[in-house]
């Protein structure tokens, strides 16, 4: 039995004691015979505990409550609680079951779970593929399910052979009794196994014995993504389906006053206009006709209370937050006293703008309503949110909504929301037909749940030797009130959990309700707070006349920071910190994020304000590395996501509305700008950390620190394009 201690993470610290206790008790394995006569295995939550999970909705009666099904023909079907949005959920979730099961990877089929409480992530009690939680949350439970299934299959074969189960081994979906030379396939004993009692304490492998975990088997979703057969939400087609296009009030909080669709009604293929509280949906017999009809509908909006809001005012509101009392998230030592004794006090203010997710697949949903309830098809990170949204439109219980999760053409946090489900179900309800609703890119950019604008004011006290003795951080942004649970203030994450050893450290959070919709954006708080803190730490190093890498090293000389220190040291080694090429300048950043330790070194040169990027080196300690190739892909992809934001990512507000509308004014990174990237995954047998998001965070501070090293200009706000810098990538 492997003993893995799950380290506390930000979210777990936020959860109440009761909730953690509930989650830790959820270990009831349960077997059923499948319709085909195979074995199905699940973890079952006792009913009262299901009800106790505040965010859970009851499981749908149409849902087979199972995670793994082994059919008589040896097909292994794994129902994955994590959706596939490019992060590798459809591969990593099965790997954890298959490792313990001993199944043949070639016989694997993967399907998405329906909306059901049984699929709630054990770590935070919601069925959400968010927060880089999937592997972290499911690492033990999915392995237990695989191990229990293996023990039952072995028991079944051993019983048939009348030999002790301990003499049998398992590999590649076969049970082998070496002494007698007999083998059985999983499928041939699955029906017998399903009749056996389910082991409640199956024996798990030691980390050192993992064969599948730590290798990089082919991603299950790759073949279908090279021949056009992958099915995303936007690809859904139903008989008799109508198509819908939508536009809503450009200002936040605005509402529809009136509309005139007389011109649209004259178009061929037009079906109807559906009125929303904040806009209109045009429904037609093809998507193009729906879009043309939408363009013909004139609308008059009540622009609402934010009609004069602009980005300058947003910035002003954030800065006003610096002088508000706020919530104290951490208070070590005595910051005011230490500042009083400091030889030198430094102060700096940092700020970042709103950002859009811009998933490549625009938001969409297909909905069908019938006598028994409603069925929706969409890419969603949170099936139960989609279920609840549909149920709310129709006034029916959530159990009467079946959610079919499709592949996601990008999620990044955007598809944790369900506003597009509400719209599609509204259209299906109004028309009495199945409807596929597709957003335009313009609607997507202008009606996102944005990465909130954020600002921090830092004050630091240095002693006469240049060592930081005090650090005061005022974090101001917009965040969700429900996260105001016991523990650190959620949105101060990335600052409040710093591993730097500074004896007097205070972190204060001010949550500003500005009125702009905000949400989770890949790496969440770590998309802004570490940029600011790691830049300010760099400022302190330069003020002290110390090397930024060694300045950080000195602050990480304690046991709890050992893993971060190892990442920092590896980065310095791999990037050649002490031997940059002539004319090149390096910038470094490292911190903990999503239960992992991550860092990046950026190698640049500069002529005036023309910056050339030569190389990015990223290292991560994410505990047990499930799929190293995909970990590197996530680090590289996360870096691209972060780099696009650093260079020119900016959603600006004018007259209460978003100014940007498509990729011409909200540009992404291009192939031309893609740098050489080297990613390193540290070997570790610690419990898994997050992987999907950490890679986005360290590029901003590392690049900003490199730019300071090269030019002497300190970037205290993003993006780079605002600061008169130009950017290119070197080709070797």
């Amino acid at each position, binding site marked *: 039995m492997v003993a893995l201690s799950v380290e506390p993470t930000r979210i777990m610290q936020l959860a109440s004691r009761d909730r953690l206790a509930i989650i830790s008790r959820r270990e009831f394995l349960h077997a059923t015979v499948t319709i085909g006569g195979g074995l199905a295995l699940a973890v079952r939550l006792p009913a009262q505990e299901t009800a106790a999970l505040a965010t859970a909705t009851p499981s749908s009666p149409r849902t087979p409550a199972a995670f793994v099904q082994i059919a008589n023909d040896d097909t292994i079907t794994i129902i994955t609680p994590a959706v596939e*949005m*490019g992060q*590798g959920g459809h591969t990593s979730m099965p790997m954890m079951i298959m490792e313990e099961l001993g199944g043949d990877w070639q016989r694997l089929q993967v399907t998405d779970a329906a909306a059901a409480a049984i699929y709630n992530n054990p770590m935070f009690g919601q069925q959400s593929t968010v927060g880089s939680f999937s592997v972290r949350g499911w690492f033990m439970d999915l392995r237990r399910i695989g191990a229990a299934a293996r023990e039952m299959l072995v028991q079944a074969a051993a019983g048939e052979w009348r030999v002790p189960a301990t003499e049998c081994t398992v590999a590649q979906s076969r049970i082998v009794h070496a002494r007698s030379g007999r083998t059985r396939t999983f499928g041939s004993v699955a029906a017998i196994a399903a009749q056996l009692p389910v082991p409640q304490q199956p024996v798990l492998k030691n980390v050192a014995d993992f064969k599948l975990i730590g290798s990089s088997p*082919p*991603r299950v*979703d*790759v*073949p*279908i*993504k*090279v*021949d*056009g*057969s*992958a*099915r*995303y939400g*936007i*690809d859904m*087609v139903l008989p008799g389906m109508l*198509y819908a296009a939508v536009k809503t009030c450009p200002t936040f909080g605005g509402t529809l006053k009136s509309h005139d669709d007389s011109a649209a009604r004259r178009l*061929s293929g037009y079906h109807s206009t559906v009125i929303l509280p904040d806009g209109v949906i045009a429904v037609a017999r*093809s*998507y*193009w*006709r729906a879009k*043309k009809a939408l363009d013909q509908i004139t609308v008059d909006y009540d622009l609402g209370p934010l009609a004069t809001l602009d980005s300058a005012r947003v910035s002003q509101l954030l800065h006003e937050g610096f002088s508000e009392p706020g919530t104290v998230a951490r208070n070590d030592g005595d910051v005011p006293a230490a500042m009083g004794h400091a030889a030198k006090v430094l102060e700096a203010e940092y700020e970042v703008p709103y950002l859009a997710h*811009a*998933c*490549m*697949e*625009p938001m969409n949903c297909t909905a069908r309503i019938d006598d028994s309830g409603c069925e929706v098809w969409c890419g969603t990170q949170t099936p139960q949110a989609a279920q609840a949204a549909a149920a709310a439109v129709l006034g029916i219980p959530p159990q009467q909504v079946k959610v079919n999760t499709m*592949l996601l*053409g*990008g*999620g*990044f946090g955007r598809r944790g929301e369900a506003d597009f489900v509400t719209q599609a179900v509204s259209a299906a309800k109004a028309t009495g037909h199945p409807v596929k609703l*597709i957003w*335009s*890119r313009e609607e997507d950019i202008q009606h996102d749940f944005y990465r909130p604008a954020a600002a921090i004011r830092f004050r630091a006290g240095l002693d006469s030797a240049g060592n930081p003795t005090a650090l005061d951080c005022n974090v101001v942004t917009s965040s969700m009130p429900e996260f105001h649970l016991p523990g650190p203030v959620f949105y101060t994450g990335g600052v409040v959990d710093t591993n730097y050893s500074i004896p007097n450290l205070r972190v204060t959070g001010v949550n500003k309700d500005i009125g702009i919709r905000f949400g989770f954006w890949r790496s969440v708080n770590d998309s802004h707070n570490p940029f600011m803190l790691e830049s300010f730490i760099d400022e302190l190093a330069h003020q002290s006349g110390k090397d930024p890498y060694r300045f950080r090293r000195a602050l990480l000389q304690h046991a709890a920071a050992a893993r971060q220190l190892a990442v920092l040291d590896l980065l310095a080694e791999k990037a050649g910190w002490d031997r940059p090429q002539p004319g090149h300048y390096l910038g470094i950043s490292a911190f903990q994020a999503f239960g992992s330790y991550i860092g990046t070194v950026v190698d640049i040169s500069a002529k005036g304000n023309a910056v050339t990027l030569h190389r990015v080196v990223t290292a991560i300690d994410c505990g047990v590395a499930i799929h190293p*190739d*995909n970990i590197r*892909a996530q680090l*590289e*992809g*996360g870096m*691209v*996501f972060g780099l696009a934001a650093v260079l020119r990512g900016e959603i600006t507000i004018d007259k209460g509305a978003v100014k940007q509308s*498509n*990729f*011409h004014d909200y540009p*992404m*990174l*291009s*192939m*031309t700008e*893609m740098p050489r*990237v080297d990613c390193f995954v540290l070997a570790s047998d610690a419990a898994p950390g997050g992987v999907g998001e950490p890679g986005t965070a360290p590029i901003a501070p590392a690049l900003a620190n490199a730019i300071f090293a090269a030019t002497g200009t300190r970037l205290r706000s993003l993006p780079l394009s605002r600061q008169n810098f130009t950017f290119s990538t070197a*080709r*070797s």
Partner: protein
Amino acid sequence: MFNLTVNGKPLGVDVDADTPLLWVLRDEAGLTGTKFGCGIGLCGACTVLIDRKPTRSCTLPLSGAAGKSIVTIEGLSSDRSHPVQQAWIAESVPQCGYCQSGMILAAVALLERTPAPTDTEIDNAMSNICRCGTYGQVRKAIHRVAKLATKS
């Protein structure tokens, strides 16, 4: 009524002449591998080959595609055997995969013109946007095709 050739087969469609080829392919021909991304010809998710040239289908009206020969991702091979598809699998390029049909077709066109492209030639030819950041793997896969072609 407009007549085109899609993946080697004749296709007759009776829709508005201004309907972008993208929506004809997706909603009339049922070829959903071609994706809608931006609607203004910038992101390249809708890339198809028209008379072997990579073309953004979201801004090309049906009237402009009539009589032409169009290849979509579904028409590249019947069994993922096209060298570019094979390289994409070998390098495990896709993440979310939404942009990859367009990426693959852009790469097919590039490699046909330039069988062993340099990094700069790849940069110049591959204007498709990938939000997951697979550019590095795309580059590797293109080089892989070139390398295998030289060997054979």
